[in-house]
């Protein structure tokens, strides 16, 4: 049996330390690491504080998951492509069998949909999420107002026009969602538009100011 004690003067310790010092300090991760991290971050963002329900988690969507369309077409080398139907109501005449590329999508019979029992909860969670987005927007808009006089007129016009465009889109999508709260795609689209609003306001608030 090897003596289990190492003397502090043992020269092999120096050699071991030198070998440890030579180890690379950085190792690149797999390419798939960031998408997985982003998906977890974005899932957590959609659910408001205290509303960590399994339903809410299922609904929170990562943009890197496949959209649950009713039918799917393949763009192949020999053909131009054709387009596909909306996500739920239309019976997909050309619905294709799932492949490895779509194994994470919802089943074709209930694409982009939430089970009926969760529709009420879906509406409630969505309104709670929108309230969080709206509150964040109000805070950012307040900051923007304080900076407005020191931005160029062209910039102010671009920002305000964009905010009007976004708010119209939010209004349309929310109205549609109230009629169809089972639509996961609508939720995802709304999430996308809301995030664009917050991003626009953040960027506007970080623009350099003209000196007064």
């Amino acid at each position: 049996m090897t003596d289990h004690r190492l003397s502090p003067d043992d020269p092999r310790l120096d050699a071991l330390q030198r070998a440890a010092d030579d180890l690379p300090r950085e190792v690149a991760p797999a390419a798939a690491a960031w998408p997985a991290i982003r998906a977890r971050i974005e899932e957590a963002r959609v659910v408001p504080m205290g509303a960590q329900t399994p339903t809410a988690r299922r609904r929170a969507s990562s943009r890197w998951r496949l959209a649950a369309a009713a039918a799917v077409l393949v763009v192949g080398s020999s053909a131009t492509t054709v387009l596909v139907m909306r996500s739920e109501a239309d019976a997909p005449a050309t619905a294709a069998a799932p492949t490895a590329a779509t194994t994470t999508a919802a089943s074709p019979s209930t694409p982009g949909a939430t089970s009926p029992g969760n529709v009420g909860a879906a509406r409630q969670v969505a309104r709670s999420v929108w309230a969080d987005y709206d509150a964040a927007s109000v805070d950012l808009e307040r900051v923007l107002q304080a900076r407005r006089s020191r931005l160029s007129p062209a910039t102010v016009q671009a920002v305000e026009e964009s905010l009007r465009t976004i708010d119209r889109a939010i209004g349309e999508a929310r109205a549609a969602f109230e009629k169809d709260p089972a639509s996961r795609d609508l939720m995802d689209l709304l999430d996308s538009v809301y995030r664009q609003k917050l991003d626009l306001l953040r960027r506007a608030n970080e623009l350099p100011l003209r000196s007064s």
Partner: protein
Amino acid sequence: MPPLPASFSIPSPMDDDIARAQRGDVDAFERLYRTHVGRVNALCIRLTGGRGAEELLQDVFVRIWEKLPSFRGESALGSWMHRVAVNVYLVSRRSELRREARVVTSDEPESLGVDAARGFVTDDPDARIDLERAIARLPAGARAAFVLHDIEGYLHEEIAEMQGIAAATVRAQLHRARKLLIEVLES
């Protein structure tokens, strides 16, 4: 040259991204991720011995995202991320590490040596085991002590505090790790 006016403060791009990420900008967080992930990933691989390293990396960056608003710049961001990574790992393996810490301080060092060395028998006795693979095969507590102290430069007391164990236990685990590594690398 006159001093820059207050309106002409150009923060570094990294400062920009930290501030943006703290306010919820995921794209900015992604840039911070790309800057620091290499070092954090190396740490995750070595701490886990390669098993579950990808899951740990994800857990670490999700935790960094959650805690980023509390980062006040008292240290470099990379150092702060590093500590978060260590903490996430240690918390996740707390029970396993504590169990091993009790074993290390048992009264039967000879049997410990045999048990620990058993894991170092390779499938291919003729193959050289390089240091990375040897580290990967260390018992978890010894591996953590070696990686954190001899590779990452933490003090015994820091490692002990993070794990909630005595500094003497960390020293014992470190000694054990070094002994096992030397034996394996010489074999």
